[in-house]
Every structure is written in structure tokens, then in C-alpha cells.
């Protein structure tokens, strides 16, 4: 899959059942994804496989995920969402 096709696939996978997630994930993908390290890009993809309700609790309610490996990417997304000018 080409890089643009991969980006398009991720864009579709940022379409969620909750508006809050559409906004937070979609904005992060658009504005930050290409600047991430390979590891962080993989972590973002892994995050997209999680459940909407969990993503909502982590990204909107700032709860801590049970899988600690997800925490760094979640922190980056929250930071980006709340400090954007």
C-alpha cells in the first residue's frame, strides 16, 4: 500500500461512532501523523483498533489505559488537542 493510500486508510479508521473522537483523532492524523516516529505511527494505528468507549474515556475523560504501551501516544494526542492554537 502506498503512503497516500495508507494515510487514506487511517483517515477512514479515524471515522468513529462518537463526534469527539472524529475530531480528536482526525485532527491529530491530519496535523501530526507524518511527523511521528515509526514507533509512534505504529502506536497510533494500534490505538485505532481500540474500542470507541475506551478511546473516549482515555482521550476525553483522561483516564489511564490498562495497557501502558498506549500511554505515550495518548498523551501526545491529548497535548495536541488541548494546546492547539
Amino acid at each position, binding site marked *: 500500500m502506498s503512503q497516500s493510500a495508507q494515510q487514506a486508510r487511517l*483517515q*477512514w479508521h479515524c471515522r*468513529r461512532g462518537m463526534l469527539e473522537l472524529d*475530531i480528536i483523532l482526525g485532527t491529530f492524523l491530519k496535523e501530526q501523523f507524518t511527523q511521528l516516529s515509526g514507533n509512534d505511527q505504529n502506536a497510533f494505528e494500534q490505538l485505532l483498533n481500540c474500542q470507541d468507549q475506551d478511546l473516549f474515556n482515555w482521550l476525553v475523560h483522561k483516564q489511564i489505559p490498562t495497557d501502558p504501551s498506549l500511554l505515550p501516544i495518548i498523551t501526545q494526542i491529548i497535548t495536541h488537542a488541548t494546546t492547539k492554537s
Partner: protein
Amino acid sequence: MAMPTYTFDAIIVGAGGAGMRAALQLANTGSKVALISKVFPTRSHTVSAQGGITCALGNADPEDDWRWHMYDTVKGSDYLGDQDSIEYMCKTGPEVVYELEHMGLPFSRMDNGKIYQRPFGGQSKNFGGEQAARTCAAADRTGHALLHTLYQQNLKAKTHFFNEWYAVDLVKDRQGKGVAGIIAISIETGEMVFIKSRATIFATGGAGRIFESTTNALINTGDGVGMALRYGLPMQDMEMWQFHPTGIAAAGVLVTEGCRGEGGYLINKNGERFMERYAPHAKDLASRDVVSRSIALELREGRGFDFLGVQCVKLKLDHLGADVINLRLPGIRELAMTFAHVDPITSPIPVVPTCHYMMGGIPTNVHGQAITVDANGNDRIVEGLYAVGECACVSVHGANRLGGNSLLDLVVFGRAAGIHVQQSLEEGLELLSASDSDVQAAMTRVDRWNASPKGESVFDIRTALQKTMQNDFGVFRTEKFMREGLQKLTDLRERLKHAYLSDKSTVFNTARIEALELDNLMEVAYVSAIAALERKESRGAHSREDFPNRDDANWLKHIIVFNDGKTAVRPVNMKPLTVDPFQPKERVY
């Protein structure tokens, strides 16, 4: 060109609560069922219904009665709901909820082990008496729990999932008897297929994306409504859209009444606390519709702020001080910082009336069978086509939906449609055949976009569409502005026919999907506008400045609109089977 073809007993479009409940009913009885979903099923918008599912189990109050729930729902609907449908929903509710419990839905419990029930607005005991507690929940994740339970059950029942496939249009049969199937496109590969089926069930959800400000996720583009309209079927009650007064401008995320309860208030661009003018006593704590219309009037009068190109008012909290905000409203502060990038400790939050729910949709009977109206004004059942959930108008919500009734609607009527399709299959429901030209007709709009040489962008037309709906058909409705709005929509609809898809690639071409979605949004917006102009009264969510009162003598009826703009009416059902009808009364709470 030989297009790949599949054949099923039933195909269901949309894998939210209603679609998956219908699929399960059919798959469990041995039918060959396909479920098409443009996103992975558990990412359907049902997950946003966190609050719960209402029905009279009688756990919180042993005296509770489904007839009281029925009364509340009829009254909540401002008497536009069909009483036979509401009766069926409220009466069947407990049975359907216990089925979900047996499937493993993890309901919250009372100490005695029974399903816990919480009070919600609009719930009463004894036909309008004291507050009832009737809403069952799985903590604050009821929608999520419902989707998961149904998804697991469907996997077990061998439902065939077409995940990340997009339904394009219905295919007519060659004799014009009914629906032969559907054309669908794989989002991953761009492949197009013809899925033949004896029965087609639409469960495609709402279409809040027609408005500039909506709580609806991006996927809520009214795909089933668009397909049904292009097929030649009418929509019902499309003027009825539920709004919340305060969504964050340019985002749509709700800020709850709690803020105003803690002493927050709304200001216009002059810094004026304008609710004092509209509701001198209740002020900012006036009812939702009053607050919504007051905001809309301020914007109409040019007293709004511009926030990222969106006209809005602001919710002021800074006078409460950092301590109160951090102690009592920490969640709101987080939301404001995330979705408006303002800190309410120092800056007011931009807010605007925000669309939440579509009460109208494809008219159906209690079995979910789609209904059209013939030239003589008589109901006609559309052979082989069903609609359930938010895309349908059965109609249980009438002019206004009560909290906790949407999840109930999904599972009760998803199940009912499944049962009816199953019976029809047993009675020999035919597989109708389509000619090549019928199939080709259903691919017209994909071909159109794929061949588009130049023109306006999807983004530009969609933005203009959403602004028009927000300004002229939102919570402030009056003849003059709606006429102007309808003209704008008519122009936009023409411009859309010449719009341009620049990306013609095949793999995950999300731009193509958004173009196809815009076709549907346009159809939804158009019939909503016609219906809003047609209804010359105020009822439930439809509130007109020029006709401020409910007018039962002339308008206690459903409005039907076809995609050519023709309208008709259908009577509201006032004949429940087992109880006396509830006669319209003034709706006071």
C-alpha cells in the same frame, strides 16, 4: 462488464443497534443474512447513546406500567407519534430488554440483583404524576454494551459482515414490483458489487450532518434516507429535528445545562446577558427550546460572535472563579479546552444551538415495512423494503424524542422487522430480478462522480448546505427566511450535479465516499426544508416564529415529502390496540 453478484435472503444496511438486532433475529432462525456497514460495526453511532434504554420493567417501582411509559412518549411527541407504534414499543420493551440481558448485556444492578433503573426527564408515574425511574443502563456505556453484545451474537449466528462497504443505491426489479437488491462499493478496494436479496432493511441512522452544528458523528449522513428518496419513496416528519441549546461552536460537542445551573450565563457580542430579556424569571435556566430560540434570535439580529467562521453566543463562567470551575465543572473545562481551545476560567465558551436527533425518516408500519403514499393518498407497502432505527419514522418519537427512547426504538423495531422478514421468507418472499439497465441505474451517481471533469468541490457545497440549514431551518424558523433558504438549497442542489471529484483512485478513496455522502445530505436537507415550510404551526421541535401555537385542527398529521418536492399527508394513528387513545392536551411539564 460482469459485476460480481451475491445473493442473500436479507441484506441489512447499517450495523448500529437497529441493524444488528434485525440481523440477529434473522440469522438465529437460519436465514442467510448480509450486514453492510461503512465503518466497523462497533464504531456505529449507537455507541454515543451512553444514557440508557427506557422501559417499564418495574424494578425501581413495582407499580410501574408500560401504559405510563406510553403516555409519557405520546405527550413527549407532542401528539404527533403514532399511538399504535408507541403502544407496541412500550409494551414489548421489557421482553426485548430481558432478551438483551440473556444475551449478556452487562446492565447495572440494584442490590437485589435486578436491573437498575434511573430517572430521566419526561418520565412520570400514573399518567403525568410524579417522576418515574424507568431507564436501564450499563453504567455510562449503554450504547457500547449494546453494540458489543449484538456484534458478538451476530458473529455466533454467522451473519455475513461486509465491513467498510458503502451502499450506493437500491436496485429496482424489472417489473417495478419492489426492491431487487443493492449496489455496494468496497471502501478498501473500490470494487463494486450487486447484492441481491429478498428483503432489504435500512438501518442507516440519522443525518445530523446537514447542520453546521451537530452532535452527530461524521458518519451520520442519512445514506438510507437519500437512497430511499432517489428510489422514489417519500420521507415523513422531516421538519422534526431535535436541538440542544449549547453545543461548542465549530465542534458540536455538548456543554450540559449543569454549567448554567452552577451560575454560568450566556452573553451576546455586546456582553449582554440576553436571556434576561427573553425569560426574566428563569433566565439562563429556561427550558431548552426557549434558550435555543433566544440564541437563534440574537444571531439573527446580528448580535453573535464569529468563532472560526461560525456565528455563536458565549457561555460565561469566569465570574465563578477558578475554584468553583475546577471543583464543580472540571469536565466542562476539559471539553472547552479540547474542542474550543479556550479556558473557561479566563474566557467564555463559544456555543450555538446544535442538532442532535432526526425524528423523521422513512415512513414504516410497526413491522418496519416501508410505506409510500399513492396518487390517491392511500398508504402502499413497498415490497421487500424495511427501515428501522433513526432512519425510520414508525413513528414513536413524533415531534420530539424522549431520552432513553432511542435505544428502545432500535432494539424493539430491529427485532420486529427481523420477525416480519422471517415470516415473509417462510411464506415464500420472492427474489426479484433486475435487468442490466436497472443495475446500471443504481450506479448512475458513482459513474457521474468518477467521470466528473471539473467543478466545485464537495467541501464547498457541503459547507454552504450546512450553513443554510443552520441559519434558515435551525431552531429559528419563519416563512421569509425559509423561502430564501429553500432557494439557496435548490441552487446548491443544481450545483451539486456539476461538482467535481478530483481524486479518482480506488484504494480507500475517502473523497469518493464523502462525495456520495453529500448526495444523501442534499436530499435530506431538501425534503427537510420543504416539510418545515409546509407545517404552519409550532409543535415539538418544529417551532415557527410566524405560527407560534400548536394547531391540532389543521396539523395533527404527518407531512410526507418526495424528492421532487411533492407533499402529502398521512393521519396520525390514534388507535392503539389495547388501551384508549391519549387525546391531545396542552403539553406542560
